[in-house]
């Protein structure tokens, strides 16, 4: 009986081995093709070589996050390579990585010194400054003039300032909206029904009567939707122009403070005011009861159940996005602050070059091409014309139904002002965005990025404290007096004063150095 089982297993083993050999042969085939460093494949290669004889063929790998699977990426990649081979004698290997695990994967790759060329980075995922300081990226400043002159001129000085980490530039920005503007997102049907006057809403408290009306008359609707993160971080400009220097430690300055004195935001009067207001609202039932524990409201939003929410990026054209997210309900934007620009509002989406790259200059050339060559950017963002999208006008296109390539993340790839617009987007939106970019008030400490390394231990522990006290307080569920006192006390124990001192020290040094 045992023999039979073994024989059966052996048969299965043999069959699977056969299958595996086939599969592994396929994947190794891919590898061989990709190792194209010394394999000129076709005649267009030699033509290219005659155009730019000094450039050796190079292959570049490009990692970026993607929140969906696109089955026809290979074909798009081939089309991209036709252009890049011709213009800079390089082939690109696209490495879209699942967005939810992007940070983990890239962190591991970088820690293991794995070889790759380009990676997407930002301040909120795969942290730009932190990785730059730990030696993950190549310094680009000296390379820009030679390899990316157009790109250098394209981005405003403001942007280059923001990209500096300890005075050096380590990435290039995917140019898009760089401003933040805070305000309410309100479902139009309720705004109309209860006669909301947007111009009357200047501060957070002003919306309260409206919320109360919703609560009274719409039992199935959540007046003010909040998740466990709370909203103070989004509202800080509205509340007296506060800017965070360290999001983890929650330490910052008042923008209007000429002396730029660093303070512990949790101990500020504005924070207390916010907490008291939220507590009132929570008690009155204006906030969803599970706010302190809920992570996302997307399903309720889609069902149109949220009357009002708050966001800090009220960019032009946001209404359309919000409408889609709210199951088709129209949304009205009611800003409570002017547009403003700070380091973190700018460094939302960049491409950096890994220090393990064998071809950093070529990689930079590719990025230059990507952000100046409309055809190339359209390819990467939308796919192949005709096959994946149809052209409606000179600068507008429409994605095909069930297209095999529709990642819809142009902001991850490059200059969103260069790529063609999608149907339904407005040329005016673009103009407005650019205008806001240029006219927004800029932060006095633009270009300063705090290096948390000397107080890493304290920050780690502070963060754990924030995680514990944040949700109940920020969503109004907890009693303010007592809980806030505890919170402040625990932060002190974890070393917040040391952190504040360190931030101040670095800020003063930076101001001295740059003369700001």
């Amino acid at each position, binding site marked *: 009986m045992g023999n039979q089982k073994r024989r059966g297993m052996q048969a299965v083993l043999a069959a699977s081995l056969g299958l595996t050999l086939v599969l592994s042969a396929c994947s190794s085939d891919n590898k061989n093709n990709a190792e194209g460093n010394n394999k000129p494949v076709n005649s267009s290669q030699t033509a290219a070589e005659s155009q730019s004889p000094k450039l050796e063929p190079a292959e570049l790998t490009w990692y970026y996050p993607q929140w969906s699977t696109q089955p026809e990426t290979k074909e798009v990649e081939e089309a991209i390579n036709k252009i890049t081979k011709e213009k800079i004698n390089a082939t690109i290997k696209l490495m879209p990585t699942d967005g939810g695990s992007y940070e983990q994967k890239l962190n591991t790759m970088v820690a293991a010194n794995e070889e790759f060329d380009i990676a997407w980075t930002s301040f909120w995922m795969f942290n730009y400054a932190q990785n730059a300081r730990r030696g993950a990226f190549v310094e680009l400043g000296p390379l820009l003039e030679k390899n990316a002159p157009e790109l250098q001129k394209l981005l405003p000085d403001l942007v280059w300032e923001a990209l500096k980490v300890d005075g050096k530039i380590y990435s290039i920005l995917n140019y898009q909206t760089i401003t933040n503007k805070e305000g309410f997102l309100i479902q139009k049907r309720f705004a109309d029904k209860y006669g909301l006057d947007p111009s009357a809403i200047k501060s957070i408290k002003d919306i309260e009567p409206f919320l109360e009306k919703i609560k009274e008359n719409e039992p199935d609707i959540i007046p003010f939707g909040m998740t466990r993160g709370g909203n103070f971080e989004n509202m800080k400009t509205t509340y007296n122009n506060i800017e965070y220097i360290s999001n983890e430690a929650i330490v910052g300055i008042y923008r209007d403070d000429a002396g730029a004195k660093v303070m512990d935001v949790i101990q500020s009067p504005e924070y207390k005011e916010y907490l008291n207001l939220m507590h009132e609202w929570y008690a009155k039932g204006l906030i969803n009861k599970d706010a302190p524990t809920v992570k996302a409201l997307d399903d309720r939003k889609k069902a149109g159940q949220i009357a009002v929410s708050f966001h800090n990026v009220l960019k032009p054209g946001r209404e359309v996005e919000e409408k889609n997210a709210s199951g088709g309900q129209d949304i009205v934007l009611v800003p409570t602050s002017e547009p403003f620009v700070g380091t973190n509002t700018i460094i939302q989406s960049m491409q950096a070059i890994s220090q393990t790259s064998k071809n950093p200059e070529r990689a930079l050339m590719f990025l230059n091409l990507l952000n100046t060559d409309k055809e190339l950017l359209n390819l990467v963002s939308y796919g192949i014309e005709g096959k994946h999208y149809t052209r409606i006008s000179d600068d507008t296109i429409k994605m095909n139904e069930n297209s095999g390539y529709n990642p819809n993340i142009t902001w991850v790839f490059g200059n969103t002002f260069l790529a063609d617009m999608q149907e339904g987007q407005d040329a005016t939106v673009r103009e407005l965005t650019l205008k806001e970019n240029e006219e927004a008030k800029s932060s006095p400490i633009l270009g300063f990025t705090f290096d948390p390394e000397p107080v890493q231990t304290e920050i780690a*522990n502070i963060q754990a404290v924030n995680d514990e006290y944040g949700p*109940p307080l920020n969503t109004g569920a907890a009693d303010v007096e007592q809980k806030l006192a505890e919170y402040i006390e625990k932060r002190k124990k974890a070393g917040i004063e040391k952190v504040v001192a360190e931030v101040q020290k670095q800020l003063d040094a930076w101001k001295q150095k740059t003369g700001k």
Partner: protein
Amino acid sequence: MYNMKSETIASGKPGISADGPGKPKRKGHFRRNKDLFILSLPALIFKLVFNYLPLIGLIVAFKKFRFDKGIFGSEWNGFDNFRFFFVSDNAWRVTRNTVMYNGGFIIITLVCALILALLLNEMSGRAVKVYQSALFLPYFLSWVVVGYIVLAFLEQDRGLLDHVWRLLGQEPVSWYQEAGKWPYILNAVNLWKTVGFSTLVYYAGIIGIDPSYYEAAKIDGANRLQMIRKITLPLLMPLIVVLLIVAIGGMFRADFGLFYFIPNNSSFLYSTTDVIDTYVFRALRTVGDVGMSAAVGLYQSLVGFVLVVAANTIIKKTNSDHALW
């Protein structure tokens, strides 16, 4: 009487030399040792490459890790990386939680699994298969999915328990905001998910027992309970000891999935549900320092190692055959 028999069998003392009388024992022993060694060689090499080689990386716990310098190039920084955990206010709380939960899990799972395995043993073929499958089913699910299930029961307004409470005319409980209830909830959920595993192991152990023992006992007039006490349990001891010592080694390590996904990361519950692994994860999430997380891992391993050695030594004193080494 039964005990003696089982002892003799279990100790496996070879009566006669395996190669028969006359052949020199030393040569036979040498050959046997060599063959056995070769048999274990593939696994040994595997372990060497995949477990021992990467242990070099542990030095990162004592270094300030920089990407461009790598594991060997980065600077030493002594015990700095350990500071973060031990200096924190929460070190005591999360350690206490970790140890108490693990201790509870070990005992409760052991008792329940043994009882269930014994009960299964009373069943006939077909019934066994059905019950076994049912017991084991929760083990298949990932903690993420179990998290959703628990949410389905406990969620505010939409959860099943909420519905039931309202039907009974009671004020519904905000489960995710009441820390005190969670030690019970977590024990229940952990038992639900993992008892199938231990039960299976014990059951497989029980059915491997020679039925002639039971027959002999029956002839001598023993009842079922006596048979369980004198035959089944003693013969299961080696297996129980193995599972026990392994679990003790993991005392300072928590099952991350359980403690992170089930409480749904609700900060209200941290005082009773935060364990070493979840605490470190949250604290280091943005700090992202490889050295610091390695330091905590090393700490957990060391404590586990000490515990295993201690447990094994204690067991050796009571019954040297059951000890691991």
